[in-house]
């Protein structure tokens, strides 16, 4: 294996899982795989530009650029069909229509609710929240990946956390005022 490839595998590929998670938060279901693959290849071709900086933030920046490019191409298509109700792949994600809710434990039920609530946040709020809480990146890294100033990262984080809490209260405990 040549030198560049070996360094790439040592520095960048450890962040493949993070790139995949990030792509799943950004993209529609089914598109994440292609975006990640595209991003890794571009990262490899541009690897010389990485030099000393943070490989994880750098890779996620490329993932986001790939996602934006892909989304732009999609917009050019005139018609995007809505998923059919019996479309197994998409329909499941859109409608919480579990045939047998009793079989679910409360915890996994809550997990599903949480994932759905996170998914319902606007994209720019969802991504900063996930980068902070799940990928544990700091503000400067998040600013780099999402290409906004740090102040914007802070306000988006605050709004997404507040929104998630409000949605959670509404979902789990009913109308917040009624419960208190």
């Amino acid at each position, binding site marked *: 294996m*040549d*030198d*560049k*490839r*070996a*360094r790439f595998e*040592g520095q960048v590929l450890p962040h*493949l*899982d993070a790139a*995949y*998670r990030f792509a*799943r938060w950004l993209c529609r279901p089914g598109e994440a*795989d292609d975006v*990640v*693959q595209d991003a*890794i*290849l*571009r*990262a*490899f*071709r*541009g690897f010389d*530009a*990485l030099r*000393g*900086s*943070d490989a994880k*933030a*750098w890779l996620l*920046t*490329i993932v986001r*650029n790939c996602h934006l490019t892909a989304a732009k191409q999609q917009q050019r298509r005139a018609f995007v069909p809505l998923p059919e109700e019996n479309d197994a792949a998409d329909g499941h994600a859109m409608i919480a229509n579990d045939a047998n809710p009793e079989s679910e434990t409360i915890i996994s039920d*809550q*997990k599903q609710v*949480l*994932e759905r609530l*996170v998914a319902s946040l606007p994209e720019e709020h969802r991504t900063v*929240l*996930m980068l*902070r*809480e*799940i990928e544990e990146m*700091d*503000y*400067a*890294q998040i*600013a*780099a*990946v999402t*290409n906004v100033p*740090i102040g914007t990262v*802070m*306000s988006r*984080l*605050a709004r997404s*956390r*507040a929104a*998630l*809490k409000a949605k*959670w209260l509404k979902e789990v405990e009913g109308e917040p005022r009624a419960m208190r």
Partner: protein
Amino acid sequence: MQCAESLRVQAYFDSEVDAVSAAEIERHVEHCSECRDLLQDLEKVRSALRQGIAYAAAPAPLRARILQALDQDSEAAPHSDAATRSETATGTEAHRDAMSRRWRPARQPRIFGGRGFRFGAFSGIGGAAIAAAIAFFFVLPTLSPLSNEIVSAHVRSLMPAHLIDVVSTDKHTVKPWFAGHADVSPAVADFEAQGYRLIGGRADYIDHQRSAVVVYQHGAHVINVFTWAASGTRLPADTTRSGYHLAFWQQGDIQYCAVSDTGWDELLGLVRLLREQA
């Protein structure tokens, strides 16, 4: 109406503030019930997310597909795709721009891995001489584990709730505290009149022993003075690492290192006071 401090409280929660701001925010939270609630909410949201969101890993088929694509890409001419390169580079510039606003550890030159390994291909005395020269110029200045250890300990101490074990501006409280917590009993003094306020002490682990750390505040900056028993380790020269200045000295059988992001003059001012005082 939201408290005007809410974004700072959030930054505190996210470990994005220095020790001095952290202390300010802690004081604010003590008397602002709204910010106390905010901190609780932030913690609830965090733990819900960290427990409730699946840490998905890239599926094995995707990983295999990517490795295969990389194989093909390595075989093809790697630098022919100019469009891709410039697009990637733009992302990188924006990225580096944001990164430069904040301290980042510099990556050490890879002497033993990667490129350096090619020197193995040189054979005989010439190769050895080149390797020795490289080692002299690059390895020696970068390999000072003690300096690295101290910078790491300093940065760690600036994270919220790590700075001080014994909070006191009284040297008669700080010095005896070390007796049970560290292997040395360093000089402790308050130089408030000269602008260096004693704010407390901490135990740390430096050079394989329990080190006593005296914490001073100078303006907005924290100065950690690490002390440990001299064990024959030669002290490195004063140096600057990742934006932090390190000044080393020895008094009797105790070795000292003062670390801070203040200017050199300010740091050496404290060093002078400590040396005179002993």
